[in-house]
């Protein structure tokens, strides 16, 4: 690990000032940043510890989207998943959080940090190989390398890495917003679906976050009606990143579908909201045929890179299954 200096400012404004210097980075739970520092993929020269800033509240009062929840950026993944309001009204979010990492890591990892975690692409971690995300302009080793865990949607020749978060997939499906605070005191909100970027030619730029901005909260709007499901497919039953995951919501009107949401994880550089598939579900019969067609629509334009070809069919089937489960709201 490279040398760094460390400070723990008392409030957000002081933290933003401290983070203005070259080489500075915020650290919260650190479950990803510290790991990347150990392998020297990340080498900040100054760490600004924001883990004790007063941003660990989950509230449904003032400053909250109508009927929604405000989740402070420092709320741990464990506390968010255990919150009775989240469990009752946003079960896909609780399920997504509980499907991620281990209990020890969920106790430490934060809401803001979860959004900012980096890809687990092997080549990104391996500093001896080219990687456009880690060292822009060096090339993508995964493109013609071992790419079993990589993207099938929205990738580019510069990068085929996927975003590893489960939580962010549920946030995309729930139309959540990310609240940001800049050093000049300006706050702004970005839709969760717009917060992460596709790789294009600049895979090193992963989010809409501007230099020095701090994530202060995630805002959930009032939960849409309908059954919610988070379905994760992975190499082992627990403690593994998704090969494919799906957050789905289906609101029924008798035998027909009134409203639907679909977001996928493990398939793209960002949580992938499948809006055209959602549109075709509205008014359709809630049956296996419809859900199968929606799975195919959600993967329209998908392509594999060799080892990950299987993900296209896997994702289609996982969407269909998640929709079927969401249409039966006895399951949460």
């Amino acid at each position, binding site marked *: 690990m490279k040398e760094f200096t*460390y*400070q723990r400012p008392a409030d957000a404004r002081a933290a933003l000032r*401290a983070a203005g210097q070259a080489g500075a980075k915020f650290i919260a739970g650190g479950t990803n940043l510290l790991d990347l520092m*150990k392998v020297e993929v990340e080498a900040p020269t100054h760490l600004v*510890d924001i883990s004790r800033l007063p941003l660990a509240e989950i509230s449904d009062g003032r400053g909250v989207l109508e009927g929604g929840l405000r989740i402070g950026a420092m709320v741990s993944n464990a506390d968010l998943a255990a919150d009775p309001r989240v469990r009752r009204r946003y079960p896909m979010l609780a399920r997504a959080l509980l499907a991620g990492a281990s209990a*020890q890591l969920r106790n430490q990892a934060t809401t803001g940090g979860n959004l900012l975690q980096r890809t687990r692409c092997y080549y990104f971690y391996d500093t001896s190989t080219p990687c456009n995300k880690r060292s822009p302009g060096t090339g993508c080793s995964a493109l013609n390398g071992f790419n079993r865990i990589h993207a099938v949607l929205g990738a580019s020749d510069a990068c085929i890495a996927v975003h590893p978060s489960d939580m962010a997939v549920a946030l995309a499906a729930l139309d959540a917003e990310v609240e940001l605070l800049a050093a000049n005191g300006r706050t702004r909100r970005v839709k969760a679906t717009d917060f992460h970027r596709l790789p294009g030619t600049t895979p090193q730029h992963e989010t809409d976050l501007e230099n020095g901005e701090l994530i202060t909260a995630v805002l959930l709007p009032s939960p849409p009606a309908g059954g919610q499901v988070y379905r994760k497919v992975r190499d082992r*039953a627990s403690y593994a990143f998704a090969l494919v995951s799906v957050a789905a919501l289906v609101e029924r009107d008798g035998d027909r579908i009134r409203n639907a949401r679909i977001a996928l994880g493990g398939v793209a550089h960002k949580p992938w909201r499948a809006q055209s598939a959602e549109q075709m579900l509205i008014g359709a019969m809630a049956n296996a045929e419809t859900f199968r067609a929606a799975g195919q629509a959600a993967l329209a334009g998908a392509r594999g890179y060799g080892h990950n070809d299987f993900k296209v069919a896997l994702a289609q089937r996982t969407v269909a299954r998640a929709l079927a489960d969401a249409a039966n709201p006895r399951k949460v």
Partner: protein
Amino acid sequence: MTDFHLTRRDVLGSGAALSVLQGNAAVAQTGKPSPAKLDTASRTRTAIVTFKVNGQQQRLDLDPRTTLLDALREHLGLMGTKKGCDHGQCGACTVLVNGVRRNACMNLAVARDGDEIVTIEGLGNGEHLHPMQAAFVRHDGFQCGFCTPGQICSAVGMLAELRRGVPSAVTPNLASSAMLAEETEIRERMSGNVCRCAAYPNIVAAIRDAAGTAGG
């Protein structure tokens, strides 16, 4: 705590032995917590960290890169907490921070300033075993034993989470806060602790015994 113990591992690697010497030299015990030096905006090359470990107040002057795991092992001589992967994947370094289980390798020691840490040494000793330790002995919940301190600390933290009604990925009904230490729940909740000897059946049996949910 300031006693100097040379282990075989220290002798084998002179570099390691040197680091232990330096580490112990850095230990200064005081009864009082240090001033909240880290709360100021000043930059520090080394950082004074004050925390309670197994009930004892400790004050360390550390390179900020030092993880909690290395602080415990190399600076406080508490070798019970193991370094397996050092990347938060194996759980061998699990300790309790303010009663909550965490991977010691994924914490900078400076970030734990003011916290209360409990390691395997703080749960019990050779004379008086913690009920979870006793259950692991009764059920032979280990083979080589390397992962065992982490398994036991994790299991203690896990039962506290069950008591608080924290759900898991296999909890069938999220709306319910009543959770039992059943086999499927234990296996899911303990997935952050890897045992390469695969002593899992006996680990699960030990935890169910300690939780009072062992079946007939």
